[in-house]
């Protein structure tokens, strides 16, 4: 029995959803792990675009920031930031965008701006970055977020990003997908050993569960080896 972490399961679950040739808009942390894992395993022709303007980046190790030198050195092209956001993102040329957030609601709307009141915030978060336009203009948006009642909330403190484009939410317990009718997120897949009850408890609203919930398979030895080989050589500080 191979042991693995919750983060590794999330990265593997996201990577499996990328097809060979998928064009991805990648952020740092788990999304970068997932997209590079896909590239190292079943989807070698996955195209990785980082918002720093690197198109077709092929890093051997995970970068700490979205603008590390290795991304530029291995990219097919490096373009300016206005170009990446105009011609490539808003131009509708990207298949999958990845986002994280501090809070998500039942419709996939995201908060990465403040916890508490905007004028007197309890926690000031980094802000929008590329998120609103990534969610609006990529064909699909994958959200990667650990399941907890603090993050999966009834009501967002601030709506940074409209959730209409979110096609799946990958958590440490499973996968949520929007209902075809009303767009509400529904639990459709559980990771091995996770239960629907756990997911319900870690959700701040009455979580809907699909009639038939799939069970994902654990990471394979090959996936884990490929994922761990991506770790930066001299530090273990890569976080979301």
């Amino acid at each position, binding site marked *: 029995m191979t042991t693995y972490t919750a983060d590794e399961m999330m990265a593997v679950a996201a990577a499996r959803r990328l097809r060979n040739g998928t064009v991805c808009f990648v952020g*740092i*942390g788990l999304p970068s792990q997932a997209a590079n894992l896909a590239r190292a395993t079943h989807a070698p022709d996955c195209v990785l675009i980082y*918002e*720093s*303007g*690197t198109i077709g980046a092929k890093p051997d190790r995970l*970068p*700490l*920031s*979205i*603008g*590390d*030198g290795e*991304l*530029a050195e291995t990219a097919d*092209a*490096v373009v*300016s*930031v*206005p170009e990446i*956001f*105009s011609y490539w*993102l*808003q131009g509708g040329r990207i298949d999958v965008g990845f986002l994280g957030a501090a809070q998500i609601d039942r419709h996939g*709307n995201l908060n990465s*701006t403040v916890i508490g009141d*905007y004028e007197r*915030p*309890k*926690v*000031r*978060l*980094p*802000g*929008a*970055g*590329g*998120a*609103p*336009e990534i969610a*609006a*203009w990529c064909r699909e948006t994958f959200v990667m977020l650990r399941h907890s009642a603090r993050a999966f909330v009834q009501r967002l403190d*601030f*709506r*940074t*990003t*409209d959730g*209409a484009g979110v096609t799946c939410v990958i958590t440490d317990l499973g996968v949520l997908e929007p209902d075809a009718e009303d767009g509400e997120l529904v639990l459709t897949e559980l990771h091995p050993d996770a239960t629907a009850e756990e997911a319900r408890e870690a959700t701040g609203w009455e979580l809907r569960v699909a009639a038939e919930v799939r069970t994902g398979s654990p990471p394979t030895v090959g996936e884990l080896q490929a994922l761990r080989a991506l770790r*930066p050589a001299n*530090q273990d*500080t*890569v*976080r979301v």
Partner: protein
Amino acid sequence: MAEIVPLADAVRGLVHDGDVVALEGFTHLIPHAAGHELIRQQRRELTLVRMTPDVVYDQMIGMGCASKLVFSWGGNPGVGSLHRLRDAVERGWPEPLELEEHSHAGMAAAYAAGASGFPFGVVRGYEGTDLVERTRVASITCPFTGEQVAAVPAIRPDVGIIHAQQADERGNVQLWGICGVQKEVVLASSRTIVTVEEVVPELEWRSGAVFLPAWILTAVSVVPGGAHPSYAHGYYTRDNAFYVRWDEISRDRDRFRQWMDEHVLSPEAAAV
């Protein structure tokens, strides 16, 4: 026409209290040395503009240089929060900081509009977000198709500051690698300061590089290592360990002040 002058003289002559100042560099070529010079010369009440305020703006905000921040993402990339920025926003230390926040696409369009002399930039965005009520953005109708798009006011800084790899003796500048919004900020600003790794007799044109002719620049200053802990492609790599350490240095006000005293304000640091 660009003059090649020491950085301290460039900052003294070109940056005034109350100015709108943009230091740009998207992870790469961040003009840290210029930011430190602004701190040493105690510039106050600045409106600081930057898509990704990271460590250099955390330092400037923590040292009381800024009264307003225009930005789209304020964090320590891959590490976490900017503690000095948060302290200013959450607790008004060392003084309150007004925020004007955008999305990356919005700010990129606003810089491109500023560079072009247009009054505003156009974005297909902001819709369905609470940002609309909190920032300067307006919905406009395309006169040709009727499509609703977002207009963001052009960014026109008083001073734009960037770091580049090379200048020649006449003050022409070339930079390469990840080039962010550096060309746009230079063209959008009334006055510009470019710090460079080195002056070479003749610039060797590189495919894909950004060339900034001397006649659009105000001052060029030679500051080797002037982007550290950010990096200069072809010269030195990003000091990722420093970004991780900054998290711990910046958490506590006293520890932060002590670090700034030692590494920025001391005569030894100023002489570098």
